[in-house]
């Protein structure tokens, strides 16, 4: 992305379709384009930063099987993937699996044009080398007996299915990949996905469970800092963490959050230019896990010192009786000189947080439940 784009585009994936919102560089006026795929459950919609016009959408439609749609003209026309993500026939005596839905899309490295990665529910990792037209499973994850044991069963997963998410490509090295699995932990590959090592040291699990059993690890969202790729941030089922490589022990920086808010949530957002700055959006993770804004008072929290301290960012957001929250893919940041945050709520509202979340304003209301929000600058 550039510091002076012609315009911004927001990509909003919802439970009932997808929307594109085209904004001016001042981020004040937004032109709504949609719905696309009305009635389809869209988990993720992403722009290819390498060409600035190819979009991929992960879709599931009622009882129909999952698929991926592709546009090469910024959403004017769509074509379906010739070979959507699908598991291989069973091997190693492992049970056969079927993809319920593609959950996460990540463009490949800048040097690998047309390469994409996809994470699915149940947990699977797939790669496309033709811009999303066809996808192949990565057996080192999908058919690895140890990883499969850690993935658990569908009954062990999150309410709408266990997921492979947070596919991170190191901007310095296309072979260096990270993935998160809910459940199943964080894993790292240095050889483009042919082999994997675990990266969970320091991460906590629910009280009473054994942290050495990766099944119990539930990273909600893992991000790499583009300005300092040795730094990772993570929002986990059990707190907010930071890891500075070559270290290998996650530090629970969420302990510095206000006790009455806690450090449970789903999204994790990192600043495009400053690795000490990051944001989360806490939710109520007490007793039965209401998964609402704590106290009905939604707020982002930001840190400017790598998690040593956190500031509440709620100016413009509802001050009471607002019980929505934000899913793990539904909060993001643009890459302008003074970045703005964007978030989509479970109640279908789209918000912009100017000046790094200091001033919130609504962009759209009355959309379906928002599952993912991405932003990009386009020319």
């Amino acid at each position, binding site marked *: 992305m550039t510091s002076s784009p012609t315009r911004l585009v927001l990509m909003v994936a919802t439970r009932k379709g997808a929307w594109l919102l085209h904004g001016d560089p001042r981020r004040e006026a937004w032109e709504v384009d949609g719905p696309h795929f009305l009635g389809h459950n869209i988990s993720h919609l992403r722009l290819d930063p390498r060409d600035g016009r190819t979009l991929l959408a992960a879709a599931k439609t*009622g009882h129909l099987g999952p698929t991926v749609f592709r546009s090469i003209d910024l959403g004017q026309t769509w074509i379906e993937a010739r070979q959507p993500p699908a*598991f291989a026939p069973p091997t190693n005596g492992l049970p056969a699996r079927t993809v319920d839905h593609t959950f996460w899309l990540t463009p490949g490295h800048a040097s690998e044009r047309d390469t994409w990665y996809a994470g699915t529910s149940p947990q699977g990792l797939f790669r496309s080398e033709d811009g999303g037209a066809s996808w192949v499973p990565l057996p080192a994850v999908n058919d690895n007996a140890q990883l499969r044991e850690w993935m658990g069963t569908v009954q062990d997963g999150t309410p709408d299915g266990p997921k492979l998410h947070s596919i991170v490509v190191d901007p310095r090295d296309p072979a260096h990949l990270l993935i998160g699995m809910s459940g199943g932990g964080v894993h790292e590959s240095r050889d483009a996905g042919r082999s994997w090592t675990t990266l969970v040291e320091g991460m906590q699990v629910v009280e009473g469970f054994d942290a050495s059993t990766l099944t119990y690890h539930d990273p909600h969202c893992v991000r790499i800092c583009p300005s300092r790729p040795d730094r990772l941030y993570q929002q986990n089922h059990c707190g907010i963490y930071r890891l500075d490589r070559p270290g290998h022990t996650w530090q629970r920086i969420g302990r510095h959050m206000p006790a009455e808010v806690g450090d449970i949530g789903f999204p994790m957002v990192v600043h495009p230019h400053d690795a000490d700055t990051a944001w989360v959006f806490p939710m109520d993770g007490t007793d039965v896990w209401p998964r609402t804004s704590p106290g009905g008072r939604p707020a982002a929290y930001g840190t400017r010192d790598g998690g040593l301290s956190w500031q509440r960012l709620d100016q413009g957001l509802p001050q009471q009786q607002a019980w929505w929250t934000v899913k793990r893919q539904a909060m993001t940041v643009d890459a302008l000189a003074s970045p703005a945050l964007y978030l989509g709520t479970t109640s279908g509202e789209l918000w912009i947080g100017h000046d790094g979340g200091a001033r919130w304003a609504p962009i759209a209301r009355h959309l379906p439940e928002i599952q993912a929000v991405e932003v990009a600058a386009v020319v």
Partner: protein
Amino acid sequence: MNVLVPSALRSYTCASQVQADGGTLHALFTDLDRRYPGLRFRVVDEQQQLRPNMRVFVNGRGVRDLGHALAPDDFVAIVLALSGG
């Protein structure tokens, strides 16, 4: 043979009833996918099973075995269970 297509699949066929061939339901879905690329995977998963909540009726009789033999004048209806929110 005639195949009744549910509304959710008409973005592929552009018609509620289409013609396709096959000696079994497996072969029929292969032929449907040749004529309407992408349709088969939305109905039959990668382990060659009819997806949950999908129903196939042959001459009015419910069938789940995709090896079920078909005759050229059979009438096949693909139906989605209506559920969800």
